[in-house]
Structures are given as C-alpha cells and as structure tokens.
C-alpha cells in the first residue's frame, strides 16, 4: 500500500513538473524575416525623415509628427494619417511615408505619446535619444515611456492629430491607417468616433485585442505570464494595475535583436496597453462602416491569416483584403507595393487579392 501511494505521489509530482505552461518565457519572436526583408535591413534602406513638427496635447505634451508631402502637391489629393505599432515610432515607417508621397498621397506619420519623439524619460525631460529605464511609479507624467493618463488618452491624441491634419490639408479626404497595435488604436478610435468624417481606414497586420481569434495566446511561468513571445503580460502586475495602480508597467515587448531600435519603447502600462486595443473585441467590427482595407502579411509570425480573413468578413465596410506575399509582420511596413496599395485604396480603386513584397 505504501509503495502504491509513493508511486502515485511521484506521478503527480512528475505531471506537475512537466506542465508546459510553467516554462519560462522564451526570447522574443516576431516571425522570421523573409529574404527581401533581410536584404532591406542589411542595406539600411529606411529613408531619412524630412523633419518633425509638434502639436500640443491636452496635458501640454508635444506630440511629434512627420509629413511626407508629394512633390507636386496641389492640395486636392487624399491624405493618410499613419499610426505606428507597439514598441515602435514614426521614423520606422519612413518607407511607407516616402512611398505614399511618391504616389501623390500626403502622409502624416505620428509618434504616439510615450513613444519616439513624443516620449519623456522624466517629468519635463523629453530627450528622445535618452534610453528610458521604465522605473515603476505611482504617478504618471506627460510623455512617460509607454504610459498614458487613462485608457482613452491615446484616442484623444489621435483626434487632435486628425483635427490638425484636416486644418493643414483642407478639402482633402483623410484616411486613417495603422499597423499592428496602431491599427488597434485606429479601430478603437472608430468605435467611439465613427467613420463619417473619414475617407476610410487601412488596417495593416492589425492587432486589435488579446482576445481576438487571429492572434495566438500562450502561457508561461504557470499562467502568470500570457501573450506572445513578443508581447507578454504579467498578470500579477495587471491585477495590481486594475485594483489600484493603473500606471504600473504590465506589458513587456521583446524584439529579436535585428529589429531593436534605440528609440523603442519596450514596456507599457495598463492604460497604454488597453488604449491601443479595441474596447469590445467581439463587436468592434460593426463600427467599421466606411471603406476599410485589411492588409495581411503572408508570413506574419503573430497573426493567423485564415482567422484574419474571417475577422475581415465581419466588417460591414470591408473594401478589400489584400495579402502581401513573402512578407512578415514588421516587413509589411517596408514594402513599396503596400504603399502603392494604400495609394490605390485612398483613391477609391478596387483592392483585393495579393501584392508582391
């Protein structure tokens, strides 16, 4: 009897020890870069940013943007406001900005608060080249890396950018475009503001919410950490943030070394994490009533292509689902054909099917 009990105890311990969810988080992955993307990176082919402008946000923070103006701009064409993805900033979208301008489309690429040139490492110390340390704090300040005052402050910032752009290009139809979590912010904005004032929306490899079926959700450290290897949420920190400390860092973003940039923002508080996601992952599609383009990367390491198609089918204003061949989640923003595709979309041309890398 004693022997049987010991065997049972050893078996139970063995099962507990082999639980895959109890493994540590592996190094960050965004999916392998394709051949042309590796060449692009090795060649340092991102165009130089032409210069930055700023608008003053509701809390006094200077929000940065870059305009990519077509050479023969006569004030009559469409304009695109482009929102970068998580951990990133506008300069890394220079290929899309330049590509749109080359196609005759005015492109404004913004730096979200707490990112890039809209980031302050300490109250009033807003040097974008200073690497943040992500020190925990009970309070926030304008531009704190990866933080925002509340879950809707990024949405209000986006509205301020749209208002400024509408003033700068009067008469031009304005389109909103977002990549990855930037598309999540675009969809969140549309959830509350609608699309009647927009020419349309372009969602590029969009990440809308952790509970969306298109993105995998993994677990490590016995369920204490969830997400992807790139974006992991510490659930204990999230619980604390939900209870009393909304400005605690809860999300860590871990990029492969080849994609790391010195100005990356690699930690998010709950307010910014939720502010970049839709409020209702089950029903947000219904708000996308205007022309909506979905651009998917064929080799996206984060998003499932088939599930993305199913989600796209739920969008009432769906104007096209286009797959970019031989392209990964990040590389889709370096693709010249994607810039051409966006330019065709904002001019009302039919967009569907596939484009080359």
């Amino acid at each position, binding site marked *: 009897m004693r022997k049987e*009990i010991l065997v*049972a*105890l050893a078996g*139970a*311990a063995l099962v*507990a020890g082999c639980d895959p969810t109890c493994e540590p988080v592996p190094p960050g992955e965004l999916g392998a870069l394709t051949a042309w993307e590796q060449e692009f990176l090795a060649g340092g082919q991102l165009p130089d940013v032409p210069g930055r402008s700023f608008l003053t946000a509701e809390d006094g923070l200077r929000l940065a943007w870059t305009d990519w103006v077509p050479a023969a701009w006569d004030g009559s064409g469409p304009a695109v406001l482009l929102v970068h993805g998580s951990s990133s900033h506008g300069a890394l979208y220079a290929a899309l900005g330049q590509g749109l301008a080359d196609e005759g489309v005015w492109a404004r690429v913004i730096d979200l608060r707490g990112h890039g040139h809209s980031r302050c490492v300490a109250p009033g110390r807003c040097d974008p080249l200073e690497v943040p340390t992500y020190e925990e704090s009970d309070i926030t300040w304008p531009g704190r890396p990866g933080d925002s005052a509340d879950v809707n402050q990024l949405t209000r910032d986006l509205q301020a950018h749209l208002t400024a752009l509408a003033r700068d290009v009067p008469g031009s139809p304005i389109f909103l475009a977002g990549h990855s979590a930037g598309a999540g912010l675009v969809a969140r904005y549309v959830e509350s503001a609608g699309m009647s004032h927009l020419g349309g929306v372009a969602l590029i490899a969009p990440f809308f919410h952790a509970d969306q079926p298109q993105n995998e959700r993994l677990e490590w450290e016995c*369920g*204490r950490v*969830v997400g992807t290897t790139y974006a992991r949420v510490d*659930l*204990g*920190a*999230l*619980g*604390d943030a*939900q*209870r*009393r400390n909304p400005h605690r860092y809860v999300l860590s973003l871990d990029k492969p070394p080849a994609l790391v940039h010195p100005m990356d923002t690699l930690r998010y508080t709950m307010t910014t994490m939720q502010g970049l996601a839709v409020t209702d992952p089950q029903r947000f599609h219904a708000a996308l009533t205007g022309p909506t383009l979905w651009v998917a990367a064929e080799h996206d390491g984060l998003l499932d292509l088939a599930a993305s198609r199913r989600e796209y089918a739920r969008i009432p204003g769906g104007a096209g689902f286009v797959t970019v061949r031989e392209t990964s989640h990040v590389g889709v923003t370096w693709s010249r054909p994607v810039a051409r595709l966006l330019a065709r979309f904002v001019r009302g041309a039919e967009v569907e099917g596939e484009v080359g890398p």
Partner: protein
Amino acid sequence: MPITPAAHLATVCLVVLLLVGAARAQAAPGMSLSFGFEPRVGTYAADDAQLADYGFAPVGSALLPAWGLRGRAFVTERLFVGLAMTYGLRVAEGPVAPTTVTLTETALGAGYRFPWGGFASVDVGFAAQTTTLASRTDGGALVQLGPVVHPRVGWARQFTAPFGWFLAVSAGVNLHFPLGAPHSNPLWEASFRRAVQPALTLGIESGLGLMGGGA
C-alpha cells in the same frame, strides 16, 4: 503537488484509520460522545494588510470560533482513541461582501486518561480552511487544505459515574500544514501561501459516557 490529489489521498487515509478505530472501539470497555466549544486564537488575520490592499475586507481578528463533536473509545482502562469533527466560522463585514473564514477539520486521536481526571491526547487529521473574498472589482477564495496535528491536555469531571454526563476543559496547539497554493488567480501577485498555520485552542466539552475522574 496539486491540492486535489493530496486531499483525496488524505481522505482515503483518514477513512481507513477511522474504520480501524471503530473496529477497536467495538471491543472497548467504555466510550463517550461529546459536544465541544473550542475557540482558537491563531494567525487567521496574518494576511489582513494584504487583503485590505487588494480591496477585500480584512479578517479582523485572530479569534476563530469553532465547535464540534468528539467520540472516544477506551481500548484499555487508561488509553483511548477518538474521532473528532470540528467546524469554525468567522464573518467580517466588508463594503461589498463579508470576508468569511470557514474551517472544517476531521481528525483521529489517541490519548491517555489519568486517575485524577486529567488527560493528554494528540489528534491527527485533515483540515480545510476557506476564506472567501470580494471587492468591488474582484473576488475569489483562499483554500488551505492539509494535514493537521493537535496535541492537547485537559481535565474532565464525571458527574454521574461511571458512564453518565461529564464536563471537560482542554487547551492545546493546533498546527495546520496547508498543501499547495491557496489560490491560482494569476491576477493576485500575493501567494498567501504559508507553511503552517498555528492556533492555540481552548475547549469546553460536555458529553455522555466514560471520560473523566469519578464523581
């Protein structure tokens, strides 16, 4: 080890021990059955600061009112074995819902009775202590399951000899060893885990049957 298999294993062991005890009791020269009020003073409020931090009502007191039934069977004139079932409850009002501490303990014991009415015994068993929690945004429970050891000394007075009514008082130390994690909520950073939960017990017991020094 996960809590559930451990609890099942302990339950099986306890049932086997109880059956053995009952078989021995059949041949015993005397037995008793009693009801006891057995409050405990222990570390029940040790997590109060953290509970308040989480928005839950704190337990608020180290005192846990407890009561139960106890049966004893004498295997010799002095030696006895016993079974005990003890229940405890404490309710602390909170802004949303009360924090409740609920204890259920089942134990097998053995002891020695002295001619002058004193006795010493040790109970070994299994205890389940559950603390239910709720705040405006969150809720759940801490479940502490594990073996318990409860040595005690006491004195009993038999009022109608030799098998009538008796009264007993006792004092002891209850040591509960919770197994595993008391919760699996990843949103709670605090583990609330403890290796042992000690409590001093003070019991007053009233029953029928053979137990104390003679009247």
